[in-house]
């Protein structure tokens, strides 16, 4: 295909991605170094029978005029990055010198919104991903041994948690795990503690969010591994049997190595997706116990006061996080590319 023909074929999709994916990244970077204008303050002198008093008020008209003239706000450089809502450099320095033990330091760190969100996001990502891969693999092996009429049915029901809208899936689960729901009731009955409630306990909330994460994403891992099992070379399994490998050894030394590229693929996709975790936190109304980077951005963007600069700064930090997570893959792709094979 000629360059010119390629250009015209690719133009619409390329333009869409340039305008609505590449430019917004530039836009968040720019917004993150500007802060909203401060209100214009005027001093008014009120003179009455008992003398004069000066009071300061906000000049609404002048403030609106300044804001309309420069909607971006005023340039503040990296100030927003270092403020309390984001990297909180001053607070960390202060805590580092004033706290005695590492535990106290962690407590201070954990109370800063950005680090609190980062802690949950990373925990969620790196606990959910290996567990859902393990569960998916087990389901795939079990379904693969079923009779073929039952396979379709099993796949149908397995797909549901993944296909359903994340917010809806988390609500459905939340209504059951809630202290008034059937599972919540059952758990508090098992623990013999009638006051046990999801809304009151941070560890319990984290566990339920992670359970939701595994529940909703294990089907994806299952489907991919199940497809991989269909391409398993029969002769290798037979050779292993002749050599006297037990069933477990066949899985360990033949099946899993065969599925390894798929495991990498699923892990990559899931790390990317789990890092964006947002809907379960909203569905579980968990923001008092767990927040994520995406949740902070949504919280800043929504509501009455749209804090665009704060949201933009968190967005840039989130993009940097994704870049760090993806860098091993990108480096590897680059090496493969340099080596000539792809």
């Amino acid at each position, binding site marked *: 295909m000629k360059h010119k023909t390629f250009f015209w074929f690719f133009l619409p999709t390329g333009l869409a991605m340039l305008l609505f994916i590449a430019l917004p990244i530039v836009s968040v970077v720019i917004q993150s170094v500007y802060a909203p204008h401060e209100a214009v303050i005027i001093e008014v002198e009120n003179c009455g029978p008992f003398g004069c008093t000066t009071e300061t008020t906000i000049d609404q008209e002048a403030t609106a005029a300044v804001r309309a003239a420069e909607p971006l706000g005023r340039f503040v450089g990296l100030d927003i990055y270092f403020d309390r809502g984001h990297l909180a450099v001053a607070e960390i320095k202060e805590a580092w010198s004033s706290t005695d033990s590492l535990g106290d330091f962690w407590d201070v760190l954990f109370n800063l919104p950005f680090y609190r969100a980062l802690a949950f996001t990373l925990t969620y990502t790196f606990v959910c991903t290996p567990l859902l891969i393990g569960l998916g693999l087990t389901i795939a092996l079990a379904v693969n041994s079923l009779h073929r009429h039952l396979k379709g049915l099993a796949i149908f029901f397995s*797909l549901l948690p993944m296909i359903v809208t994340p917010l809806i899936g988390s609500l459905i689960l939340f209504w059951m795990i809630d202290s008034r729901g059937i599972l919540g009731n059952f758990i508090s009955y098992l623990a013999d503690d009638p006051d046990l409630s999801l809304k009151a306990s941070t560890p319990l909330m984290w566990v339920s969010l992670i359970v939701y994460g595994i529940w909703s994403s294990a089907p994806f891992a299952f489907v991919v591994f199940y497809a991989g099992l269909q391409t398993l070379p029969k002769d290798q399994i037979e050779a292993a049997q002749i050599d006297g490998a037990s069933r477990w050894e066949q899985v360990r030394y033949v099946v899993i190595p065969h599925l390894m590229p798929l495991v990498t693929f699923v892990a990559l996709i899931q790390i990317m997706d789990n890092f964006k975790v947002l809907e379960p936190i909203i569905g579980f109304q968990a923001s008092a116990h767990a927040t994520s980077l995406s949740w902070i951005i949504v919280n800043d963007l929504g509501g009455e006061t749209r804090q665009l600069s704060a949201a933009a700064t968190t967005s840039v930090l989130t993009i940097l996080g994704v870049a760090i997570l993806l860098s091993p893959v990108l480096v590897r792709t680059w090496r493969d590319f340099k080596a000539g094979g792809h």
Partner: protein
Amino acid sequence: MASKAQRMPVGLRLLTSGFIVLWLLVAAFPFFWTFWGSFKVELDFFSIADWTNALVGRNTSDTYGTPFTGAGYEGAWVQNEFWRNVINTFIVCVFVVSISLTIGTLGGYALSRSGFRYVIWLLIVALIFRALPQVTLVAGYMLPFFEWNVWGILPTAIIVLVAMNQPFTLWMLHSFFQNIPKELDESAKVDGCTQFQAFRHVIIPVMWPGVITTGLFSFLLAYNDFIVTSLLLSESNRTMVPEIAAFLGTTYTEGNVMFAVAAVVSATAPLFVLVMFFQRQIVSGLTAGAVKG
């Protein structure tokens, strides 16, 4: 799996069967439970006193005389006019799927037929775009959209969703078009067709299976989206998912949780039907990227 050596011992067979039953219960039971409960009153749906109330609906019988009631559905659809949101979701889905398939097919076809180096780079850039959290992009739209006065309307959300959909669509259609032999359109070009005529008359007739699979995923992305629709649409233009999120804020205080439950069941039903009819396509689409790549 018929050979004698492959046959499982009884113990292992029981273990796997038990595991499958357990997993299917975990995967499907919440949906059936919520569906069943959506026809009850709140006291039965959240039955603290006696969990069997949720099954037989004692409080529902006390209130309405029968153990099933459509009160939640009436509240959601009639009182809160949920049908408006359903129509909005329908409009968004139709336009997102048709636009993103049209431009994605052209782009994916071009990527699969061009042997130049920049193809790899475009695909890697698309992969990076796919990895970006959508909410970070939305933060970038807000200010310009306010300035241009296009915030809050359906076309804006549709265009944004189309663009966000492109990286995935391109990857899927690229790998799909690579499986269509190059000789097909090359022989058409030898016969005097331009590249576009070859695409129009030779490729389009044979590309439908891949396009339908990709379209399903575009539909799911548009239907399931929460971030774009909740942040970029005004209250009167909301689609189903942000409306359900908004229900939560109001209904918990008003004691109308059942409206939200009914709305949730209503929004899940189309997905149920979709999986029933297109299970094969969904499975093949999920695995296409993985097995071939």
